[in-house]
Structures are given as structure tokens and as C-alpha cells.
């Protein structure tokens, strides 16, 4: 699990660098008023959120089982954005720069699905 989390973290770093100017941008500090999504009981508790272009979503894992947020490449997403594995109470934020619908999963639990609709 440690190796997996490490690999995921590496992937996230490279994705962040490559996508700094893209539609999705992993950010260290979420801007004020960003939307919160809690992760608990093997689920994204708010599986669909609607936000305005230019704002951010922050995910917080609230359980011991590690989870992440993983946007696969596809329409509107140039390259995979695979967030690091979050341990309990860790967070991850992504800023959305362009309108569209962005589906995501948790890498080791592909049945965990969520969606960010950017208007």
C-alpha cells in the first residue's frame, strides 16, 4: 500500500506540473469558498457537485482506508490527473479552469465514482 501511495503521489506531481495551465489544476491551497467533498464509507459523499469556472473542490478523506481522486484523460482532460492517496483527514484540492463535466474515480476502488460539473 505504501508503494502504491508513493506511485500515486509521483503521478500527481507530474500531472500537476503538466496541467498547470490546463482545465484541471491541482492546487496546494484551495481558494476561499471552494466546494468540500467528504470521503467516507467507500464513497464520495457528494458524488455530484456544481461549481463556477475558476473555483475549486477540496476532497477530505475522513476514514482510515486511503482514497484518492483520479480524473482519467478524455474530452477536456488532456492527461490523467491522479491525486495522491489521502490518509485520514488529509485533503486534496483541484481548481477547475474551464466549463464542462469532469468524472472521477478512486484509483484502487474504481467503483467509487464522482462528478464535478463546472459552469
Amino acid at each position, binding site marked *: 500500500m505504501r508503494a502504491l501511495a508513493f506511485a500515486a503521489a509521483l503521478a500527481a506531481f507530474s500531472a500537476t506540473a503538466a496541467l498547470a495551465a490546463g482545465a484541471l489544476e491541482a492546487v496546494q491551497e484551495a481558494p476561499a469558498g471552494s466546494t468540500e467533498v467528504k470521503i467516507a464509507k467507500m464513497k464520495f459523499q457528494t458524488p455530484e457537485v456544481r461549481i463556477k469556472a475558476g473555483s475549486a473542490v477540496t476532497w477530505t478523506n475522513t476514514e482510515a482506508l486511503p482514497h484518492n481522486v*483520479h480524473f*482519467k484523460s478524455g474530452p477536456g482532460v488532456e492527461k490523467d490527473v491522479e491525486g495522491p492517496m489521502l490518509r485520514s483527514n488529509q485533503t486534496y484540492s483541484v481548481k477547475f479552469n474551464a466549463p464542462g463535466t469532469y468524472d472521477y*474515480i478512486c*484509483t484502487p476502488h*474504481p*467503483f467509487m*465514482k464522482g462528478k464535478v460539473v463546472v459552469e
Partner: protein
Amino acid sequence: MTHAYTKVRQALCYGSATLGAAALAALIAAGSAAAAESHGVATAKAAAADLAAGKADDPVVLKAAPINARRVFVYDPKHFAAISQFYMIDGDTARVVGTADGGFLSNPVVASDGSFFGQASTVYERIARGKRTDYVELLDPQTNNPIADIELPNSPRFLVGTYPWMTALTPNNKTLLFYQFSPQPAVGVVDLAGKKFDRMIEVPDCYHIFPSSNDTFFMHCRDGSLLKVGIGADGKSQTKRTEIFHKENEYLINHPAYSPKSGRLVWPTYTGKIFQIDLSSQDAKFLPAIEAFTDAEKKEGWAPGGWQQVAYHRESDRIFLLGDQRAASKHKAPSRFLFVIDAKTGKRINKIELKHEIDSVGVSQDAKPQLYALSTGDKALYIFDPETGKEVSSVNQLGAGPQVVMTSDM
């Protein structure tokens, strides 16, 4: 016989390792246990007679006999090595009659009409790294020459310890279905007749593939239901969930037995409760569940365990389950006993002491079946008569960590 001898002598004389699978097979058989030894003696006698008669040596590449019900395919994933191996064994003579190479964690398939065997596999351009290629390969079972090599786009295979029902053939052997886990559950459709990858079917969070017809298969879902999937024409697949048939704390093993010919799915839990589902009508009919062990036995620690822990013989409607006394969470450790159960009544017919640490079982589907007991630790296949419970023969030196036994229900 003389040909087999020829290859052995040739290999021995020239010390060549490039003579092909047949020569290797003959060597393995010659260096093998009881049943194979007698073959070695017979071969030596025939060779001596040929020599005395002044018969000229005539080296050829051998062909295996056509697949029959007692052709056993043993797959060795070699404990997650990048390159794996298949052994083709004739159950009657307990001889290796051929080998084939595989890539990383192959999923083997054997055609029910004996026309081919093959695998969905994965290779990398620098042994275990570099560009990844997933592909489906079909081999002629007599020459072991490839008859199809179909690339799967975007490396969709699920890399997992080999579960036989993660890749399956439709009953007409014209379509191969394989499972994708990440980034989302899906089933890949490979058109074997047209020798091309067809498409991915998105499915909910369900696992395993049990084809019940040429265009229908079932899966087992996270919520405890089965999913029926109609492959459909022109990419229009339909899905329908059954009722939830087991509780959340009933853990179904990764190696159920499935008979495509009868549509019977036999699915044990960690504790030896056996769910049976009849898929023959293209709808799931849940049969009454069976308990393999009494409450008293469960208290004494009896539980199923191993890799392929269960086999099902279609004609006699019998279940063969590996079991032993074990601590909780030791469900992947081998078993020393085999429980023969009447699938209809749930009654125990026999308890066979295997006298080896057995990880996987298989059964031939002929009228008087052979039972195949594979030991990953011993790297050996022990062949039993399930009626008498007696070990008839064995084949050793089967790679590094053989785990999967497959036969063809012909």
C-alpha cells in the same frame, strides 16, 4: 514412440535446447515420477531395439494428439514472474505432451471443441518494463503454433493472480471476454472468428465473467447480486441485476466452478457454504445453498482453502471441494482433503485424504472422471480416481508455482 525416443536422443546427444517443446516434453516425461518412469523404460527399450536393428534415426518435430477430455492444462504464473508457462498433460499416461510460453499473469482459455487453447496475456518491451502490450493468442493444440494474435488496445487487462473466470470463451468459442478493473469495471469483447478486438462494455462494480450463451454473460456484483449482460449487436449491450443472494459477511471465493455446458455456477464461501446458480435458462435460478461442513466440523476448524478450491463434474452433478482444518484467514493455504458432495442433495459422498498439500483441483468431464490435484509447493500434479480416492499417477517439475488446472468439457 520412436519419434519420442528420437527427440530425446537427439536432445541428449547434442545438448541442444532449441529442439522445441516436444523434445522438452519428452525429457520432462523421462525424468518424471512413477507413471512417467515406466514410459522412460519403454522408450529406452524401443531405442535399444531400433539401434540393434540398425534403424536410422529420423529427427522430426512431434505433434501432440488432439485434445480429449483428459488433456490437462496446467498454468504456472511463477509467483508473479514476467514470463509464465503452460504445461499440456495427457491425464491417461501422466505425460507432459507439450508446453507453451505466456507473459505476465496470463488468463488461459481452452476451447470446448478442442480446436485451440490460448491466453489473454501481457508483455513489456524490456522484459518487465517499457511499453506494455496486451494481446490474445490462440494456439493450435497439436503443434502449439499460434493461429491468432490479437492486440488489445490501451492495456485493458486486469493484472491479478490468475482467476480462471476473469477471461472466458462463449460456448461457440467465437468470442473471448476479458475483465478490466481499472479505471472502471468493463468487459472486453474479442472477436476470435474475425481475429480482432471488438469493444469494451462498461459494467457496474461487478466481477468475473460467466458466459451462459453466445451473447449473454453473468457477473457477480459488489452488492451481492448477479448482473446479466446481453452483449447485443452494434454495441448495444443491456444489463439487468438479480436479487441479492448472499449476505455482506458471506465471502465468496475468487475461484468458483462454472460449467458453461450446464450453466451451473458453484460458488463456495470461506466457511464452506456453497451457493449454486443455474444460468441455463439465461436467467439466474438460485438453487438451495449447501453446507460442506457440519457445525461440529466448523468448530474444529474445518473450512475450504487453496487456490482453485472447487471443481464441478457436470454429468454426475458432483462438487469436489478442497478442505482442511485451518485458522481463520488461512483460506489461501493448501488443503490435504477433498470433499465429494452431491450437488443436488448436498450430501457428502466421500472424504478423500490426498496426502499432499493441494492448492487447486480440476476434474475431467468424461463419464468416469479423473481428478486433478495440483500442488503449488510440490510443483506437481497428482491424478486421482475420485471413486476410489486412490492416487493413480503424478507429474512433477511443473514450473515454479503452478496454480491453475483447466480441462475441456468436450
